[in-house]
């Protein structure tokens, strides 16, 4: 019995053809500050990483709803680095944690989001949501009945500030009389406050909204449904959350960013740098079911031509960080 088993094993080893060496998968770890199904920030990163895994390019490990203080994030990055991860993507403004961890794990590629310092093997990747926000502003100019547009932001820091300003400038580039009201919620997760802030702006006649922050976004969407107003989704495709009220969504497409990092690591050419793919990392997804107002065809044409101009580099969206 044993002899048969042994002989079978030996013959199997002897007869098998030499296996073609498959390209080795890059070991990637993804650290998210929220759940993978939040419909926004974390879901987009998760989808992008999953796609790379499906394509066989990476071996993926994920930590979701991670604690967000620097010390905890540093520990999580270090644990992944020590566990063999070649690339650790810490998907929030985790610059300090990234550099702290890099000090003890200098050979692990670490990437944090939002822009900032780079060096060694620590990279950052940009969130140029202000660019599709400019396009959203152009659309808003065509559908606002009151001439007042609204912007809600969790906090007043560069990514959000630039988004609010670009929305205003995009609208004013078509109709200079358009006014914008903006409110800061003070919390990434406070849905109820986001909803109330939107309603407060609606009382000030604002009827088209853009938002920066997952919690406020959910609140805004709830308010749009209550008062039959219009708005744009944040980071994820939120069009189906309020099919009649969502004009479109500013969808963060992280796949090309993550793919570029993985490619650099696989090719051995990775160094700490700023991965900035501009508007190519954002899909401006219009909602075919939107029905609160009609978008004039010339506005749609202007959006198309502006989008082409941004992508080809002939037009630069103003970036106002403060």
């Amino acid at each position, binding site marked *: 019995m044993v002899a048969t088993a042994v002989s079978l094993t030996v013959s199997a080893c002897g007869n098998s053809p030499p296996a073609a060496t498959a390209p080795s998968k890059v070991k990637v770890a993804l650290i998210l500050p929220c759940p993978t199904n939040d419909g926004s920030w974390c879901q987009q990163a998760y989808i992008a990483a999953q796609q790379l895994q499906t394509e066989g390019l990476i071996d993926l490990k994920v930590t979701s709803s991670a604690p967000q203080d620097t010390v905890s994030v540093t520990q999580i990055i270090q644990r992944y680095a020590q566990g063999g991860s070649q690339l650790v993507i810490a998907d929030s403004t985790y610059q300090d944690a990234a550099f702290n961890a890099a000090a003890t794990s200098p050979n692990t590629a670490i990437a944090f989001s939002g822009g900032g310092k780079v060096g060694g093997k620590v990279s950052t990747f940009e969130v140029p949501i202000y660019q599709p926000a400019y396009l959203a502003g152009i659309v808003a100019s065509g559908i606002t009945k009151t001439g007042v547009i609204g912007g809600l932001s969790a906090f007043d820091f560069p990514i959000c500030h630039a988004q609010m300003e670009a929305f205003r400038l995009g609208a004013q580039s078509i109709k200079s009389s358009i006014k914008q*009201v903006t409110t*800061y919620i003070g919390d990434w997760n406070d849905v109820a406050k986001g909803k109330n802030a939107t*309603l407060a702006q609606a009382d000030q006649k604002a009827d088209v909204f853009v938002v920066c922050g997952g919690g406020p976004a*959910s609140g805004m969407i709830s308010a749009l449904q209550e008062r039959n107003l219009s708005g744009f989704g944040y980071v994820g495709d*939120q069009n189906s959350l309020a099919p009649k009220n969502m004009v479109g969504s500013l969808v963060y497409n992280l796949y090309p960013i993550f793919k570029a990092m993985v490619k650099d690591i696989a090719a051995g050419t990775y160094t700490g740098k700023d991965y900035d793919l501009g508007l190519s990392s954002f899909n401006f997804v219009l909602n075919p079911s939107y029905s609160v107002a009609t978008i004039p065809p010339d506005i749609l044409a202007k959006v198309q031509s502006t989008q082409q101009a941004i992508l080809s580099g002939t037009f630069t969206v103003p970036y106002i960080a403060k």
Partner: protein
Amino acid sequence: MDWSLVLGVGLFRSGVQLAMPTALAAVGESFSERAGVLNLGLEGMMLCAALAAFVGEYYTGSAALGVLAGVAVGVMLAALKAFLSVYLKTEQVINGIAIVIFAQGITAFAYERLFRSLQVSPQVPPLHTIHVPILASIPGIGPVLFDQNVLIYVSLLTVAGVWLLLYRTKFGLSVRAVGESPIAAESVGGHVDLVRWLALLVCGAMAGLGGAVLIVGDINLFGPNVTAGRGWVAIALVIFGRWNPLIVFGGALLFGMTDALQLRIQAVSGGTLAAVPYEFFQALPYLLTLTVMVAATVASKRSAQPFALGVPFRREVTD
């Protein structure tokens, strides 16, 4: 920009909506603290109840069952708190904070697992507004108090019920006695630990109702940390309200109104282009509540804090 719209009916309606979850939790907390138990797990109870209410309504289609689920989960966590604080007599500050940390983790984990496969974030349908005939047309108060959804009315009745329970029933008298002087209460035949258990369960039910009202009565969806610190504000409001449920409720309404006000002022004054930093407006509700609290404490002749608050009761063994 229209300043007159800042101080209109919209402000007060918004204030009531914003305030209600915190107000319910604060009234519940005042009840448990009157019995001498400090419940720092309030934020955790609200958050778990919020998830339970959402899951309950999502899977059964019934708003009422969602609210009941929220209340039930609040009570369950309160039972855990009572077990830790009243039976095991562990440090109340620490076990309360532990419950909050636990709640934040378990709700994020459970929400992700339960709804992972959906393409679109789940929502539940909003409640209809109920216009109370005649009363809703009273100028000023009418649209604010009598033109809301059913949960707001339920909340108001529940707060009145808790006040009655504390001040007009024998049980309420035991609660107050046990919080001031447990030794005296025990000596006349009261059961200190039992009363504290029950007071905590009432607190948990109120916190659960608060979490449920936030979801079922306002935002109709769940998100990570959706309670955003309301439980902590509620605990502070108990001190503000001098441990009297009605004053606590009033304080919560004041806080909510000021919050609604600062959002409206931000909208009027121009947001990104405003001269006054927006952080000042965000701090306004806290500043106002703190000022009133300090003034009230300084002006009053005696401390309103229950004498035995936070101290586990240990029966003296005498020969």
